[in-house]
């Protein structure tokens, strides 16, 4: 059972709430202070992406976030319900070495997640996709 579970309507305004809750649960689960910024940013990126695909494919469905901090790692699973979400390539592709002087990765959010969480898994979950991320917590983090 997750320590905290939440669902929210896919609106950008709620992503900040999800970030704040995730950071609070991570802190309480023993994730070191130095990693809390990474948790906050990675969860925000995953939720932002979920909101984006929900608004495109299923705006009436909520985004789901499960936070589990009971074990040796603090785990976050962000699940979208967008059956049409086929666009996620993991690991994310780097910026193309083309002529564009401001070339950026195709999905900046995924690039940020890849750079922040040391353990990331992307899987199909029912109709949508789940991004599972974890960080050391509790005794292992010490």
């Amino acid at each position: 059972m997750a320590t905290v579970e939440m669902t929210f309507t896919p609106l950008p305004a709620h992503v900040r709430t999800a970030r704040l809750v995730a950071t609070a649960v991570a802190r309480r689960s023993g994730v070191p202070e130095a990693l809390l910024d990474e948790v906050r940013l990675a969860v925000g990126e995953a939720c932002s992406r979920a909101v984006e695909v929900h608004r495109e494919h299923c705006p009436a469905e909520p985004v789901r976030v499960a936070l589990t901090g009971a074990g040796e790692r603090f785990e976050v699973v962000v699940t979208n319900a967008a059956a049409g979400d086929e666009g996620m390539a993991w690991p994310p592709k780097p910026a193309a070495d083309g002529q564009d002087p401001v070339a950026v990765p195709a999905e900046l959010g995924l690039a940020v997640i890849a750079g922040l969480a040391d353990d990331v898994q992307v899987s199909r979950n029912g109709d949508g996709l789940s991004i599972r991320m974890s960080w050391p917590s509790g005794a292992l983090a010490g």
Partner: protein
Amino acid sequence: MDLKLEHHTTDGIEVVDVEGEIDVYTAPRLRELLIDLVNGGHYQLVVNMEKVEFLDSTGLGVLVGGLKRVRAHDGSLDLVCTQERILKIFRITGLTKVFGIHDGVDEAIAARKSEK
């Protein structure tokens, strides 16, 4: 913390002071301001991020979009940032190679002037 945006002209360069959180909810306001400035003929921009508490990929996308707009007019968009947690996001995404990132507004303006 919401997003606060102010801007003023110094030595012919438009300085945008950003305070608060730039995320999927607030980034559209920064995008609109940058577009307004470019449409108003301001092609030399410095975005001061010293009071930014949070920046995500949506915010990065807005800054990249702003850079592309000013470059279309042979302009520039430089950043002011010394906060490690914000700089880290630029490094992760490789954008430190794309933006000029300076320690202060005066340094950013001086660097831009010296290139002219």
